[in-house]
């Protein structure tokens, strides 16, 4: 302790383990996929509609799973509602300066929007016969002029909530006193960029599986993933620089795993995408799988490298 690189080395671990790792990854996918779906809805071509629906189909189950993971991670899971309602007064429990409190409400809000968009996507494919739902998807059906404003509100607010869910987890870690987590303010930025790259990868992988490789939206996702992976590398280097002496926390087996994440989950997919203007089928699947694996392992490294100190 005498040679500790930072005062954060004097704290103890909160025992956040695999449930939290999976939540960070799946929550990131939920937020990222919703954001991408809203983006495709607005800027994609009409034939990209199935790709946007896919984003909504992924987002809502991932939000449900996220809530479940967070609940079972509590030592007293039946008290999960204490996050939202004050136990003694039954008034809303909201502390905007506490990322966990803010995040609990954000998850609820995002769950609401992702549910609406999920149902609207089902209605669009005639799995649900409820015409009013058409109005809740941007740009809705062009014939349904009356629902346009509602659908814009849903997509914009849902997209913002999705990005929030993808990024606030990094701020949550920073607003502690634990080694590495609170030694840099950049983890939120890293997580939001990583959520974008993993979400684009997942949508590409699923699109290929459904035979939608020719959609312009998939080509756009490919290009976006390349850009975001470069961003992710830059942000990760910035994280390391900002850690300063606390970087010592990564001079161990976790640092080795991080190096593997950089090589396999970031550089290798970038090389694959640079070698081909449009990736061949096999390479697209490989690239997407590597990005997803890298995104997951990145969260493993961030969580456990601090937990072991």
């Amino acid at each position, binding site marked *: *302790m*005498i040679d*500790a690189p930072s*005062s*954060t080395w*004097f*704290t*103890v*671990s*909160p*025992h*956040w383990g695999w449930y939290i790792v999976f939540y960070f990854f799946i929550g990131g996918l939920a937020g990222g996929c919703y954001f991408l779906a809203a*983006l*495709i809805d607005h*800027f*994609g*071509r009409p*034939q*990209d509609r199935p790709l946007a629906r896919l984003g909504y189909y992924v987002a809502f189950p991932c939000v449900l799973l996220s809530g479940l993971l967070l609940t079972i*991670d*509590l*030592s*007293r*899971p039946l*008290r*999960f509602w*204490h*996050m939202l309602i*004050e*136990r*003694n007064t039954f008034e809303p429990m909201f*502390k905007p300066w*506490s990322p966990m409190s803010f995040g609990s409400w954000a998850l609820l809000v995002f769950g609401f929007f992702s549910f609406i968009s999920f149902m609207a996507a089902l209605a669009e494919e005639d799995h649900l016969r409820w015409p009013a739902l058409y109005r809740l998807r941007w740009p809705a059906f062009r014939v349904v002029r009356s629902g346009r404003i509602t659908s814009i509100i849903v997509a914009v607010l849902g997209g913002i909530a999705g*990005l929030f869910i993808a*990024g*606030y987890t*990094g*701020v949550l870690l*920073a*607003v*502690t*006193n634990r080694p590495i987590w*609170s030694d840099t*303010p*950049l*983890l939120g930025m890293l*997580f*939001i*960029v990583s959520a*974008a790259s993993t979400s684009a990868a997942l949508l590409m992988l699923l699109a290929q599986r459904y035979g939608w490789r020719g*959609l*312009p939206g998939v*080509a*756009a*996702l*490919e*290009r*976006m993933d390349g*850009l975001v992976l470069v*961003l992710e590398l830059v942000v990760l280097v910035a994280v390391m620089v900002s850690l300063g002496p606390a970087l010592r926390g990564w001079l161990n087996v976790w640092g080795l795993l991080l190096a593997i994440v950089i090589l396999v989950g970031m550089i290798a997919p970038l090389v694959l995408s640079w070698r081909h203007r449009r990736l061949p089928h096999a390479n697209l699947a490989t690239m997407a799988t590597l990005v997803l694996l890298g995104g997951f392992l990145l969260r493993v490294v961030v969580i456990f490298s601090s937990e072991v100190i």
Partner: protein
Amino acid sequence: MAEPMGFYTDTTVCIGCKACEVACKEWNQLPSTAGGANTMSGDSYDNTRRLDGIHWRHVKFIEQFSETRQDGRWLLMSDVCKHCVQAGCLEVCPTGAIIRTEFDTVVIQSNTCNGCRDCIAACPFGVIDMNPVSGTAQKCTLCYDRLQNGMEPACSKACPTDSIQFGTISELRARAQKRVEQLHDVGEKRAYLYGADEKMLGGLNSFYLLVDKPEVYGLPPDPKMPSRNLLPGSVYTVLGAIMVGLAGLFSFRDRGREGIERGEVRP
């Protein structure tokens, strides 16, 4: 509100008897470690090792010996929650389970805590941990129940050397300052107070007289509030969101057209 109350711990008179640990365990009915199994640390006379959810007082044994073991000294310190005026645990607790009492102390309400463990990560001193029996985060309450009934906390009451002193913060600070001066006068120039003024987290309502660097006692030299990262962390995250949004806009606008131009897709 009553006047702020707290502890002043003079580590120079602690004899490591652990009476405070026992008194705390007894009064607060804290469970034994490992179901009562006899567990030894193996490398120290101290078998408690650290503060946690079932050890709200811990007497630290710092053994400073030379290589030849011909020279050495023991530093003993009864550690406890600092009941910070600016408390990181209270700040982040999402359920409102952690409260500030009328005595300016910090208490976790066990019937409200749901075991999210955010407070454990937020505490700059590593004081809080889980109580496996209650399934909630726990720490010293500064014997809130005893204080409400006009009694002194169990640990300071049990301390045989007055290493742990209880009282109003203003009175304790004055007493501690006098003791530092006394020690300086007799040649112990290393004596100083840790956390006795507002510079450290607005003041620690449990502060210490130490004779070595804080790190030697396992105390952070520069404890900070977790919220120091809230604004910069949020700003950088928003920047990240903007970068992702721009990357998305750039990719979708260009690629959509390119795909059509190359004839790969029909508009």
